[in-house]
């Protein structure tokens, strides 16, 4: 019983936006959108990046002030001047970048801003601890309330966020791409929690780029496009193709570029022998030839991230050999890896991939500055031409001189790609290449990667989205417990990959 149709006698909406409009500068972000969520339902919100989802959710949670339109809570018009107002009204936004204090403990975070005070206004930590433990265990999460958030996994942090919402007795829970950083197993656990909350009568707004998920868990789905409402439908009976068509107007098979017959010449460009980097990587060997896109699949925490981090020079493994373009490369230096033609697109573009406050120009040319300068002076005309070419190659729309935080997620990711492609590296490593990127931009990124490979490059990537790995890669290496458990062809199914990832043996 995954799909509930909306019952004929549906309860009235808890939270509603009527004809919401919002401009940012000259650009319209939302052009007259109405949206509502009812108790006991999961209402999915989809659309490409820049479609207006964040703005809509921002209005509902008090982060954004609409230019026009009305927010109604229990049928009564309300105005949320700031996030606090919405939160006090029982609306809790679970941010994509989880809004928790890393240096504080779980209980401190759960009660942040709403600490329980006992007599004389002194805080009652033991009561807070007790309640935190109770809520967490009701969510099926075994997390010690005294643990520091920095030591928790992303999935655990999400549970802490949800616990926060429940402690505050929120009636509306808004989740912004909650599964983006989760492994499939963790995502399933999250869905179980969400289903329980729905059964308890919570209203849940669920934003995701993963359409299969939405079909699996949501009751209704609303599609936005270019700031306008495409429509709202009950999920039952819909397929991912229906959704994709409504979002972008093209079916899903067009998402992935065509694979070409690879001529596997004897010379691999990237070769690793017996890489050991405890505790996560315990002996990995692989080789990739020119023109190949190879994917690392596996459950979260089995070593995929660390393999890439070693190759990127971020981690120094305790053993293993690396050869790039036939030449041995020592580990442990990002600068050296780049000099040997190994470029790395990290998972979190906001903290590792880009300097958000700086311009596209500045970001794109950063790793290539030494080629663009003379005696240490940057030749600005050359720099600009270089950046223009780099950006054109990935088709980023927007000014070169505007700070990148003004770009949508998809365009930001393309700027990161432009930055590394422009270094003329032959080996491209990517961790979650399309995290938080809309369908349209995903297709463009896949096409870019394929074009890079067709030009003789080698791509090694890891992603939590199996569909992506299977659709894009020529080969899938399944990582399990720090070793390559199996190599599967691109024709493998999700089930086959999962079987190896969970049991270590082919199904």
């Amino acid at each position, binding site marked *: 019983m995954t799909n509930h149709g909306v019952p004929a006698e549906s309860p009235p909406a808890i939270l509603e936006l009527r004809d919401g409009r919002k401009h940012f500068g000259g650009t319209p972000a939302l052009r007259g959108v109405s949206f509502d969520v009812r108790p006991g339902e999961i209402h999915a919100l989809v659309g490409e990046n820049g479609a207006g989802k964040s703005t809509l959710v921002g209005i509902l949670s008090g*982060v954004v002030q609409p230019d026009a339109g009305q927010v109604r809570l229990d049928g009564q018009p309300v105005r949320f001047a700031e*996030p*606090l107002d919405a*939160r*006090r009204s029982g609306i809790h*936004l679970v*941010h994509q970048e989880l*809004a*928790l*204090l*890393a*240096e*504080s403990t779980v209980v*401190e975070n759960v009660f*942040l*801003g*709403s*600490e329980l*005070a006992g007599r004389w*206004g*002194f*805080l009652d*930590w033991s009561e807070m601890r007790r309640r935190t433990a109770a809520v967490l265990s009701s969510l099926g999460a075994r997390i010690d309330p005294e643990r520091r958030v920095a030591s928790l996994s992303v999935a655990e942090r999400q549970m802490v966020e949800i616990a926060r919402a429940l402690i505050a007795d929120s009636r509306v829970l808004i989740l912004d791409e909650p599964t983006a950083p989760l492994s499939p197993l963790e995502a399933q656990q999250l869905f179980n929690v969400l289903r329980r909350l729905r059964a308890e009568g919570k209203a849940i707004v669920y934003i995701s780029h993963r359409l299969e998920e939405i079909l699996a868990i949501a009751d209704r789905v609303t599609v936005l496009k270019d700031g306008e409402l495409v429509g709202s439908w009950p999920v039952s009976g819909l397929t991912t193709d229906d959704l994709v068509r409504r979002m972008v107007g093209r079916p899903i098979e067009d998402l992935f570029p065509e694979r070409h017959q690879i001529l596997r010449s004897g010379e691999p460009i990237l070769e690793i022998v017996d890489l*050991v*980097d*405890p*505790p996560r990587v*315990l*002996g990995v060997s692989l080789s990739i030839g020119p023109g190949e896109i190879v994917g690392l699949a596996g459950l979260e925490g089995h070593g995929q991230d660390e393999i890439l981090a070693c190759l990127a020079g971020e981690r120094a493994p*305790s*053993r293993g050999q690396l050869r790039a373009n036939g030449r041995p490369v020592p580990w442990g230096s990002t600068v050296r890896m780049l000099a040997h033609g190994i470029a790395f697109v990290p998972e979190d573009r906001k903290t590792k991939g880009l300097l958000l406050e700086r311009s596209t120009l500045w970001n794109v040319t950063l790793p290539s500055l030494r080629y663009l300068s003379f005696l240490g002076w940057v030749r600005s005309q050359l720099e600009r031409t270089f950046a223009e070419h780099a950006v054109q190659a990935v088709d980023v729309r927007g000014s070169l001189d505007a700070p990148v935080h003004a770009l949508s997620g998809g365009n930001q990711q393309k700027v990161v790609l432009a930055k590394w492609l422009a270094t003329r590296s032959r080996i491209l490593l990517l961790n979650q290449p399309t995290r938080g990127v809309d369908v349209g931009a995903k297709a463009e990124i896949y096409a870019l990667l394929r074009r890079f490979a067709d030009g003789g490059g080698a791509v090694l990537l890891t992603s939590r989205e199996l569909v992506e790995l299977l659709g894009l890669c020529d080969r899938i290496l399944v990582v399990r417990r720090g070793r390559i458990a199996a190599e599967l062809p691109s024709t493998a199914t999700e089930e086959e990959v999962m079987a190896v990832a969970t049991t270590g043996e082919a199904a």
Partner: protein
Amino acid sequence: MPSVVFLGGLLAIGALGSPNFATTGNIANVLTNVTPLLLVATGQTFVIACRGLDLSVGSTATLVATLVATAYPVVGWPAVALGFVAALSVGVFNGFGVRAGLNPFLVTLASLSIVQGVVFTYRTSPGGKVPEELAAVAGLVGPVPVALPIVVLVAGLAAVILRWRAVGSAILATGGDPMVARLSGIRVGRSQLVAFVISASAAGLAGLFLAARTRTGDPLIGQPLTLDSIAAVVLGGSILSGGRVTLVGTVVGSFCLGFLPNVLNLTGVAYFYQQLVKGLLLIGAVLLPVAVARVRERRERVKATTLVTTR
């Protein structure tokens, strides 16, 4: 906590190196000398907790010390109240500046200069007079410094505020991540204001104590407190970027800085080496935990690698 190790080391060196160290007279002397630093560092801890830095504490202490000493002969006891109002105004000025989005370093750098400048308008050399009763606060009753219980009270109060009052959580949250704090309904600006007011008040108390101990208003007396207070907080193990502080650490850190010159003097180390040692102590405090963590990690990796190899 490296500061505990340092303090223990200092005490050991003092006790072994000089027969005059472990005497009640000497210890009481150090305790008295470290009082203003303890007070200022306690206040500084709040500012650092909310990701700030208060460079004006030294000037503020000077302001209070000189103001009280200068005004007392004219107006009598209200001079003390005047001093406090002055300290509070510095805190409010800093707090509002930071609340308005200005960089704490710059705001307090400005107020450091302004306050010192104001002091020089009425006092360019030590002078004035403090009430006898106040001077007694800086003295001893038997072997015990009178100010000791006051300092313990202030530090205890500070600990209670940070841990057991909502405003303490708000300050820590503000320093941990201002965005997260704001989204959690914490009034970030107010937390910053409170932190700076607490810091200035503590600096004011320190100024009062300095005036009491020297029985005069010296227009330069607070100067070393600014950097020493930051050093004491860092030495204690608080994170300079905010969000996680330890008051116990600050107290221990202050004692380290208090005992350092004393131990060096008694063991016959020349004055000009003291700065050097202080600097080494500070860098050691920052490096030690990092070094320990690295060594531990390396050892574990080697162990894990051999496990893989032998399997």
